[in-house]
């Protein structure tokens, strides 16, 4: 394991403020797509287009590889605060990646 410099103090303080929240990790479904799109827009600043169809497609293509983090502190208003997406890809870790990144990942 590599030694890694610890997180800056300000970010550690931010973490303490969110510790009281109830976060649940669960599989992504199509009903999360709207909130995921809002989160993605906030983080990646892509206000000009929607990713709702993309998120729904990922959940349909490979449901096992999709997860959302939901803040359930207010059970009446669960809120998507994180998500992750995976797809199946054939590769051998023992061999170098000779193709370009775009080719390897099918352009994302």
């Amino acid at each position, binding site marked *: 394991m590599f030694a890694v410099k610890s997180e800056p103090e300000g970010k550690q303080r931010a973490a303490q403020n969110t510790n009281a929240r109830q976060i649940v990790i669960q599989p992504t479904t199509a009903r999360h797509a709207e909130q995921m799109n809002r989160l993605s827009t906030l983080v990646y600043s892509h206000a000009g287009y929607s990713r709702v169809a993309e998120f729904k497609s*990922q959940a349909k293509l490979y449901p096992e590889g999709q997860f959302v983090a939901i803040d359930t502190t207010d059970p009446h208003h669960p809120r998507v605060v994180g998500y*992750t*997406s995976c797809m199946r890809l054939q590769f051998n870790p023992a061999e170098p990646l000779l193709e370009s990144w775009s080719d390897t990942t099918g352009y994302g």
Partner: protein
Amino acid sequence: MYGVESCVHPDYRGSGVGGRLMDARFALLRRLNLRGMIAGSMIMDYHEVAHLIAPDQYVHEVIAGTRFDTNLSKQIHKGFRPLNLIPNYEHDPRSLNWGVAILWENPDYTPEARKTALILPFPMVMSGNRPPNNGERPAAR
């Protein structure tokens, strides 16, 4: 497996949400007995020193633990191994479009188990109520 994307709300960063999402991925890799996961990591803080050092030097310093990158440092801490730089990874002024290919190898991966799972014994692929193979040959049609 390919880690397409991970995203955490800015208000929740540093609170373990990203780590828990990553753990869900690792659990999936173990459950499906997959070799590992490859992903791209955006070096988010590179713009702060881009006028001083090249991206490969930056990554070496993050690996050595002498420099903290908001993204890559956490992934290394989680057990990812940086492989190589990716030019034009994502258009983002923070990374100056640089990314790093990172790999997490499943320590529990067993090739034998995967082979067994894929090659099912003959009775297992039959439909109906036939009992497990008792040594008899299947009846000729």
